[in-house]
């Protein structure tokens, strides 16, 4: 493909610039950080795939409660494990400064969809709230509060009343919050 572990070809670089929201410096920095994650044997492969454990050691993802979901969503392998460099660029592009609200909300929906079925049902929402409120028992909500919260969320955001939040309803909620674009950002 023209990309060895050490050097990124110029035509490939311009292609990446066209297909993603990243600038040239950001792509080069991403390349440098990605090759640091690879093991020595993988570096010589034509299209290396960094394993999930290595990616989760990145300081930008290390403490994020959604880190495993993020890697899963952007991975293009069959087993959803590990990212190639292009997957990594897709990730950074979706989380970059100039990505559109639509792209961000699309990927946010996929990240929050824990069972990967295309809608956010009650289990997804419960897992989401648990990720948001943290690991310890004192910060988590009680089962009663959780039930109440989920039914309120569904009441507010489920327009067609089918019991789940689909992508369009999710995007509708997101579009009302102007802070989403600035908070859905990861910068290397």
């Amino acid at each position, binding site marked *: 493909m023209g990309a060895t572990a050490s050097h990124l070809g110029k035509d490939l670089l311009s292609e*990446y610039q*066209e*297909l*993603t929201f990243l*600038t040239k410096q950001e792509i080069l920095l991403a390349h440098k950080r990605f090759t640091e994650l690879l093991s020595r044997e993988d570096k010589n492969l034509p299209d290396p795939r960094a394993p999930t454990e290595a990616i989760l050691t990145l300081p*930008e993802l*290390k*403490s*994020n409660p*959604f880190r495993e979901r993020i890697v899963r*969503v*952007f991975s*293009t392998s069959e087993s959803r494990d590990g990212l190639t460099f*292009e*997957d990594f660029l897709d990730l950074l*592009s979706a989380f970059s400064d100039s990505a*559109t609200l*639509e792209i961000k909300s*699309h990927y946010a*929906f*996929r990240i929050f969809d824990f069972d*990967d*079925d*295309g*809608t956010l049902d009650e289990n997804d929402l419960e897992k*989401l709230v648990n990720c*948001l*409120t*943290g690991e310890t028992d004192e*910060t988590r*909500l009680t089962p009663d*509060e959780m039930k109440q*919260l989920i039914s*309120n*969320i569904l009441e*507010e*955001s489920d*327009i*067609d*009343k*089918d*019991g789940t939040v*689909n*992508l*369009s*309803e*999710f995007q509708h*909620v*997101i*579009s*009302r*919050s102007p*802070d*989403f*674009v*600035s*908070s859905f*950002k*990861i*910068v290397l």
Partner: protein
Amino acid sequence: GVHDSFSRLIAEQTQDERDPGYERDPGCERDPGYERDPGYERDPGHERDPGRNRGAILSQYYNRTLQLRMRRQSRPSLRDLPHSSRPSLRGYRVESDFSETDIRRQALVSNLQKLSVSDRVRMLRAMPLSMADKRQLRWAPLSSLLLSSPLGHQTPHIVVLCLISLSLSLSLSLSLWFSFLHSLQLWQLALKRVGGRFGTGVLSYFLFLKTLLFFNLFLFLVTGLFLVLPQAVHPPPAVHPFSGLELLTGGGYFSDSVLYYGYYSDTTLNRDCDNNGSAPSPGGWRGLDCARQGLSYSMPLAYFFTIGTAFFITCIILVFSMSRSFGQSFRVEQSPSLLAMKAFCSWDFKVVKTSSVALMSENIGTQLRELLADVTRNHANQTAGQRLWRLLVHGLAWTICSGSTVACALAVHYLAQHMHAVRHTHTHTDTDTHARARTKSSLNVSAASCGLDADDRLCCCVVCRNLMLKVSLLSVLCFHWLGREATSGLQCWESFVGQELYRFLLMDFIFTLLDTLLGEFLWRLFSEKVLKKSRRPVFDIARNVLELIYGQTLAWLGVLFTPLLPGVQIIKLLLLFYIKMSSVMLNCQAPRKPYRASKMTTVFITLLCFPSFLGASVCVTYTMWSIAPSRACGPFRGLSTMMQAGRLWVEQLRDANPHLTWLATAHSYLVENPLFLFVAAGVFMIIIYFNSQVVGGQRKVIALLQEQIKNEGEDKKFLIRQLQTTHAKKRDTPARRSQQVRHCDDAVTRRGKASFSLPDSDPRYSSTFCNRGNATGRFRLSIQSPAGIW
């Protein structure tokens, strides 16, 4: 295709039932977003892209590229559609009936090829597909299976082409400029660290500081290039020696330097002139013969036009950024969906430090619980007594605040009068110190009195009170300077005012430093060592931003009197950045309250534009328009007002060249006549009213559409129930039953879950249809509303 009549659908289903080769399992409902073809189960794209079927994305973007090529609005006009048309139909108005993903992809590729380069790049970037898919779309060879576009190839008009190319080149140059600015990467690493530790709120303060720095840089470049440099090249002899104290007082050596207005000559600076340029002729308007022989530079004109143009350009930039920020944060729909928004949008992915993440989780948990309590609690239950108490507290706080503001303003007024009467030159700093001390004390009093109020409105209240104080202080000072000092017969009142402003700026900086030291550093030491708490002070974003705005107002006020003041402000902002950055990192912790960064940024930019810049420009305009400049110094000595410089120049031009009379008349009508301003203000009001009516209409449309989607969901449930009844009647053979159960199970396992479950009560259904044992027996449908309908 999409069905628009129930009876047709039911008839279709009953017809298919009679077909012996019938394989489609009626129990498993299919979403409109997924394909309806029998080849659905074999679609390989489904496994890899469970969130949104790739086919759906491709068809959606095919529609978009088509509409882009047709150069119409992406949202279909509601007027053209029949009123009873269901919302799901409206977005798919132009969708062709594709049955194969390949043909769909080919159509999209052909559309992409026909777009312009920038449109294609933008469309490709915005697609939520993986890089491999995008590359295929970009470079796919066009096959013979192409569907021809439904429109003919239109050649646009030549004027349109020219305009398009002009706008493209403009946008290209703008994007180049911004990428250059971005690549400067000023403080990029430091900002990332702050954002990673404290989140978006504190980061917005530092970004605001960076914006102010760029404003001042622009002002400094303009004044430096056109005013300071030419004057510095022709210096009159220095009177005072330099000593270090001038940096603080602004007097001494500085009083006869480029820093102040008084230094600038009122003549035309020129070289290669008869009298060697060393003794400029008095009354520059008579020196034109000399000017024609060599390079000439009319200082008064340059001064007048530079200041005017700098203010005008700053105004345009401010209004532009304010409208952009407002557009980003304004949302048409007003109905609150607080819990859903909090759950979906509150996680700040920028935060990286583990302790900050833990803190953020804790905060979100607390906020969710509070919101839940708010939502479930009935507000009417709040007794009249409680509400009265809250009103009392608010009223008391506001009276205290207003009272202290008025007292402060009066004190400054009398102090200034006293100083004016005594005419000391060294103790003017007393005015500043007194003013600042009173400001601080009254602020603390008002802050303490509203500690009882615990919600978001507190931030706005604090901002308002702070603002009121500063505005009243500044207006008293302006009145004093422009009203009293200007007419007092001082030797060079402009330089005096410039000196005062320089000192004010310096005092502001020193007080901010003291504030940081005492408020953050010492408080942290105190709470750690003495109180033994691990709770660090919180960085007060609103107050710090208001300090910045106050400093910038002073800088804008002073540009006319002290052309180098933007330079001083730049140095101050640079120092402030590093000091605040280190203080925040060492002493503060992340804020506990939710901070709506986008809304507050809009508020701050609006505050920067309206009271701050508007006030400064009104003062400057008033000075230029009606106050007589001092006779003994400055570039406008001898004229009745500063505006006269422009008027005289226009008259000179007219005398020199009779063709330019229109310029003089235009000047007298536009610049001198205030009617022009009233007309412009009227036009603005009309535009604002029109836009507000449009927004009101859009809100009504949104409410109607939501209602329609809800009704559509009900329709769909009814339809499914009818279908089930119909199919149940046709079910009779056991072989058929078992075959269908097998098909159903296969489909269920492949899709991951069934789309609906059935009431257990009817025994006919339990063996025939897919039964997930859901006790509630709710129908669970996925209705794909078209994206982009609003």
